[in-house]
């Protein structure tokens, strides 16, 4: 009873260590362990016992595969779901910068809900913290965000796409953006440039295509890529998009380049103190990061809950397999004990075997997730009531997370059978067939 409790405690501590300890510490533990195996007498004994176990794995292929595949399943699903959360978060986190600010009407959570009139647009541009270009014109872009319904390639069903009318000063505000085909739209014309993600998800957005928006024909004249949330959008001229949507000369937001990232606080205070304005400012980075938090947190929770339940299932599968492995090797282990091997090498050697199977499973699962889902493009409804296109990201840190889960499952699945093997009475074991 006491031994069972102690084993349980060890399992919990090890699981916690594996989940929370930094990689460097784990690497150190691994190195120390390998040294122990190579140098000490008990270590060498352990390794020779472990070798026997490892060499007989092919004879127990079925139950060894259960450990590998069970863990591969857990790690594969976990990594895939987390890659979705990571990809969504990344696309929004990479949007915006600390030296540009977005101004919207006070109380508005998203651009779609905001309205700024002509006077407000002009006032915001005049703030002293706004940088000016060589011609002494403030780098400020009034922008209008509207939503259009276009058919998606995958389903043929209408989905919402964001259309952004931008001011002529907008281009310098997006240094990352580059045209991948065609040209920029001409001011004053019903022309659009299409983001890479929108182009991938929606039908009929090739350069030269005509689309009908608000009863009028627009022409796609180019495509662009900026590696962030703007890739999900269609851009046109502010002075054309607004009137087409009956918005007159109002904007939904104004984006400005600040003289310096540190000028943001002063900028925010300045516009808050201006009685003529009822607006809020955020850095563009803060604005987009906030938008990602709710959904990506939700997805991450889904991943952890599904992963945990699956992991429990896999632990029981691993326990079964390793108990069976120990049972088939009962005589051999008892013989070793009779020859004078102590309990520790037996326990550790079985753990080594399980952990190796677990690593194989983890690697397999992570590899499958990576092959299937890395750079997989998907889209969902974002805060602006339109599709945000993002790609799954199977990052190295995610692979590491998956491997840690695999090791934890392997450790727990191997520990209990190992302890049973070590505690077996030699005479009983020798008699067993």
């Amino acid at each position, binding site marked *: 009873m006491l031994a069972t409790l102690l084993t349980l405690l060890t399992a919990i501590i090890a699981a916690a260590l594996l989940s929370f300890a930094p990689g460097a510490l784990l690497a150190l533990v691994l190195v120390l362990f390998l040294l122990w195996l190579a140098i000490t007498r008990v270590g060498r004994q352990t390794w020779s016992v472990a070798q026997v176990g490892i060499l007989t794995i092919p004879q127990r292929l079925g139950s060894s595969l*259960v450990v590998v595949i069970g863990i591969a399943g857990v790690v594969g699903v976990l990594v895939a779901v987390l890659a979705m959360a990571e990809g969504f978060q990344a696309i929004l986190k990479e949007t915006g910068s600390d030296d540009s600010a977005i101004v919207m009407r006070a109380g508005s*959570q998203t651009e779609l809900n905001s309205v700024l009139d002509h006077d407000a647009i002009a006032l915001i541009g005049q703030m002293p913290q706004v940088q000016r270009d060589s011609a002494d014109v403030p780098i400020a872009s009034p922008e209008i965000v509207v939503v*259009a319904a276009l058919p998606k390639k995958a389903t043929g069903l209408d989905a*919402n796409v964001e259309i952004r009318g931008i001011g002529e000063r907008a281009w310098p505000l997006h240094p990352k953006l580059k045209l991948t085909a065609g040209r920029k739209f001409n001011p004053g014309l019903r022309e659009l440039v299409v983001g890479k993600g929108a182009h991938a998800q929606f039908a009929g957005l090739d350069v030269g295509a005509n689309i009908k*928006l608000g009863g009028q024909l627009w022409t796609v004249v180019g495509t662009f890529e900026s590696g962030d949330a703007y890739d999900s959008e269609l851009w046109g001229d502010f002075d054309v998009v607004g009137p087409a949507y009956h918005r007159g000369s109002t904007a939904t937001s104004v984006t400005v380049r600040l003289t310096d990232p540190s000028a943001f606080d002063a900028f925010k205070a300045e516009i808050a103190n201006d009685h003529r304005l009822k607006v809020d400012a955020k850095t563009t980075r803060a604005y987009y990061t906030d938008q990602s938090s709710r959904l990506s947190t939700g997805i991450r929770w889904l991943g952890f809950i599904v992963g945990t339940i699956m992991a429990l*299932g*896999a632990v029981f599968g691993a326990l079964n397999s390793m108990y069976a492995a120990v049972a088939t090797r009962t005589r051999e282990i008892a013989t070793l004990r009779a020859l004078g091997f102590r309990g520790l090498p037996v326990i550790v050697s079985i753990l080594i075997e399980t952990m190796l199977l677990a690593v194989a499973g983890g690697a397999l699962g992570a590899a499958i997730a990576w092959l299937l889902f890395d750079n997989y493009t998907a889209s969902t409804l974002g805060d602006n009531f339109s599709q945000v296109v993002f790609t799954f990201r199977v990052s190295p840190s995610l692979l590491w997370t998956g491997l840690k889960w695999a090791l934890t499952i392997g450790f727990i699945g191997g520990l209990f059978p190992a302890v049973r093997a070590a505690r077996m009475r030699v005479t009983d074991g020798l008699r067993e067939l």
Partner: protein
Amino acid sequence: MKFLPLIFGALFRRKTRTIFTLLSIVAAFLLFGLLDSVRGAFASAGNSVAGVDRLMTISKISLTVQMPKSLLERISAVPGVKDVAYANWFGGIYQDPKNFFPNLAVSSNFFDLRPEWQLSAAELKAFHDTRTGAVVGAELAKRYGWKLGDKIPLEATIFPMKSGGNTWTFDLVGIFHQPDPKLRGEEGQMFFNWDYFDEARTLGNGYVGWYVERINDRNAAGTIAQAIDRIAENSDHETKTQTEAAFQANFVSQFGDIGLIVSAIIAAVFFTLILLTGNTMAQAVRERIPELAVLKTIGFSSRSVLLLVLAEAVLLIALGAAAGLALSTAIVASLKASGAQLPLLPVGGEIWLEGLGLSILIGLLVGALPARRGMRLRIVDALAGR
């Protein structure tokens, strides 16, 4: 039935192994129950049967563009349209942006078009008579502990008030119920008077977000929808009319293919499970070959042995499935009771039926190979331990 002790005896020949296997199965079906509940919640949004005799008219440009209220009279005149209501998305925030729930300004006849909701005549009258009156769903009222007579302040995100403030305060005069447990999510909404809203807002006055039409004949839905859309054809505000169910299904599909994601996860889980239990069953049958040979010696036919092993596999998985489904039922019920705002459908008869059906299928699959082995064994060899 008389073979049951034999099957149970075989299952619990090695208790630890059977219990571990059982627990893996429980985990798999717990996940199945939970994920199917999520999928159901999204799927049922587009499946409300009651919605079939209702149409929805939105701006052809997108849902976010408003239409003039002047269309109301002309839509009402379309043959086949019994009644027309309209609504606006308000998007107000209660206390914290995290407390999201839909709140809408609706015309006074809005509830007439939703006879499936239960709202007492007195409360409906109070709604008509109180300018700042609001009606909320029972679930929403429970979530924030609201009672009739409470004042509910909402921070506007789109519509500041003419009076200069940004806070709209409503009087709670009615609480409605949705009796269908699958559609209980509809109880998470708040409604208030469109007339008050239109009077007090600073922009968009005279424009509505969408129209809802009740029609005489659901079979004529397509024709009526076309007739409605013809009204504003070639104007600045062209419309798009479809059944409410189609609208909701389309809206939900914009979140991405939830069904596909859930099915993929469930497939991965069950694939792993089949391998896991398949191996265990094979191992268990291998150990019991001499016992099966004894049964055959006694006079059990090959078919009975096959059926015994299959029954064993099916029973094992069905037991685990029942436990897992029961667990998921309890978890979803307690999450719902705690008022957490999650897209979950109560785990009901349908999911149980599906889950148990799947468990039998998986049991047969997992038992097939070992059962064949048991059926084919040669008594003389098996008894001699060959």
